[in-house]
């Protein structure tokens, strides 16, 4: 048994509270790309986290700084600003500080190998934050971090573990998006029939995971996370893999599909991913009555890669707390594969949700699906 004691996020729409508020009102954080040559990349837009210093150039080690900010905020919210004992930190990331490596190789910006990962920077917050393990698991990385954090507290390896995620846009990943796009996409439109592909977001997230003995604040009950690998294709999703991951998560959580009230979908806005995820949801929830409300955040905050699972977790916790589910920004006409699914479009919906599911799927077929329950 484990709980989410507290959670913090940093997205293009702001901190957790601000992001949720702006999601509810259907805002979109898309903006022209900065710091890279958009014309050469064939990618014109992204969902940037704006910060001081941006006007004069690209600040260094952004993924690291956002991560440290979120870990500090989450610990503070949990009442652990000065942790009383050892707190391991599992950092999920798709791209580590590879943007810094690109700038080192191309522009001669200083970088040491140890700055590609996050032990030194997180350790500066507190000597109690150790060990710091960096798990680089593509777009479901922070979902994997959450699974491992729960395993650690449930197997007595620590009483409290921080699961975190962070990513900043790399030119090399943008190049892969631009290389296969006919023309640049101007926004992410998850599950829309006319979706035109993915754009990268950025930012960080952190969740404090605590075990049975925890007496501090509780944001939600962490029922379980299923993790698996399709072992099928380097970049394409597998229907069997994704539906299997959802079933595994529900089995671990001890919940039936009909118990799930809200699903935070992965919803990347690509032709293949959204169709596959929609079909998998239809399959898994086929006998679950009207089925859960479905929403997705990438139309509003972009694909935040390794941070995306924990950003969706933060939104899911707020859905359970507020009884409101934000709409899928960018969704106007649902794709045919979503026929019969309750996608939230246009405006937010009210529902007394108790159980939420968070989907995250990544390159290489790495799946992480989390199920949480409202706090008692």
């Amino acid at each position, binding site marked *: 048994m484990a709980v989410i004691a507290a959670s913090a996020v940093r997205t293009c729409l702001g901190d957790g509270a601000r992001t949720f508020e702006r999601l509810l009102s259907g805002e979109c954080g898309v903006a022209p790309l900065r710091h890279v040559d958009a014309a050469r990349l064939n990618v014109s837009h992204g969902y940037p986290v704006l910060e001081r210093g941006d006007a004069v150039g690209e600040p260094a080690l952004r993924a690291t700084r956002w991560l440290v900010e979120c870990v500090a905020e989450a610990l503070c919210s949990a009442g652990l600003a000065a942790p009383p004992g050892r707190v391991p930190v599992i950092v999920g990331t798709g791209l580590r500080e590879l943007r810094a490596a690109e700038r080192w190789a191309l522009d001669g910006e200083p970088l040491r190998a140890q700055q590609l990962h996050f032990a030194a920077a997180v350790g500066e917050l507190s000597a109690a934050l150790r060990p710091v393990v960096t798990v680089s698991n593509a777009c479901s990385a922070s979902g*994997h971090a959450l699974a491992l954090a729960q395993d650690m507290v449930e197997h007595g390896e620590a009483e409290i573990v921080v699961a975190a995620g962070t990513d900043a846009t*790399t*030119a*090399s990943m943008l190049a892969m998006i631009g290389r*296969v796009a006919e023309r640049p996409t101007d926004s992410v439109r998850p599950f829309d029939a006319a979706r035109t592909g993915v754009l990268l977001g950025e930012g960080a997230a952190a969740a404090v995971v605590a075990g049975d003995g925890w007496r501090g604040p509780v944001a939600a009950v962490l029922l379980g996370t299923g993790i698996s690998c399709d072992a099928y294709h380097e970049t394409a999703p597998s229907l069997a893999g994704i539906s299997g991951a959802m079933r595994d998560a529900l089995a671990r959580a001890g919940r039936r599909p009909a118990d799930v009230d809200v699903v935070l979908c992965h919803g990347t806005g690509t032709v293949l991913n959204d169709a596959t995820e929609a079909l998998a949801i239809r399959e898994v929830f086929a006998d679950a009555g009207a089925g859960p409300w479905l929403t997705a955040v990438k139309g509003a905050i972009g694909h935040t890669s390794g941070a995306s699972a924990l950003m969706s977790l933060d939104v899911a916790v707020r859905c359970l707390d507020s009884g409101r589910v934000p709409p899928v920004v960018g969704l106007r006409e649902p794709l045919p594969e979503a026929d019969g699914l309750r996608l939230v479009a246009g405006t937010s919906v009210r529902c007394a949700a108790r159980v939420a599911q968070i989907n995250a799927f990544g390159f290489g077929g790495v799946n992480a699906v989390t199920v949480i329950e409202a706090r008692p």
Partner: protein
Amino acid sequence: MTIAVTSWSVWLPGLGPAETLGGWSPGPACRPEEAGELLGRKGLLNKEPATRLALCAVHRALGLPPGHRRGRGAPPDPDTAVVASSNLGNVHTTCAVARAVRDQGVRGVSPLDAPNVSSNVIASSVAIWFGFGGPNLMVCSGHPSGLDAIALGGLLLASGRARRVVAVGVEPDDPIAAALCAPGPPLRQAAACVVLEPSGGIVLDRVTEAAGPVFRDEATPTIVIGPGGDGALDLTRRLGHTYGALGVLQVAVGAALLHERGGAARIVCGDPTDGYRTTRLTSARTAS
């Protein structure tokens, strides 16, 4: 719960036939560009050197014949997990793609490099190549990364998420990787694999933090593998800087030595910035 190392391999291109690691000979190892001789050529075209070395190490640890491939359409084994460790495996490709965009625009890059610009390419490639459908983790934690991978492998077994864990550590030695690690001991390309299961083989203690490079055991181990001074088998001094591969390499070498001689091995891996980790291997046989 007991965790055991049931199989191991080391893949060290350039190691002479008479060279040993503490008296154990890991066997010949081709360079990454020759990996097709072991793995079969199809499917290797866009695989980076680190991925190729990792595949070779896993192939050897599983005891597969040369050219053996996963059956076409064979369903993945949901009970086998993969935990890979590497810090620099895809840094060269990432930088090369960024440079190609700057010089030639997006037409100068290959979409076949898409998996390679994501840092988890090694772990997922091992899963796809061999058909492992269990949890799949890519650990990039710096110096202790290899032992972090071993620790997470043990956690996956203890939590019932897998019945078998294939842990693989690998590092390339391309100029970009070498420059990023400079100054310091020269980077050495290396891969190692250990298979973890709940029983049999060499018993692996839980990986814990260590305060520093030297760990004082209550019961003196037969072998110390780490930077710990006199009498220790220091694989970095012996081979060069194998970075994210090191922890797995140490466990593989330790298991191989204990299999031959019996006894126990203390393993320490890390550095002052990233922290140190340690574990202990024990053979059922007393040291001979």
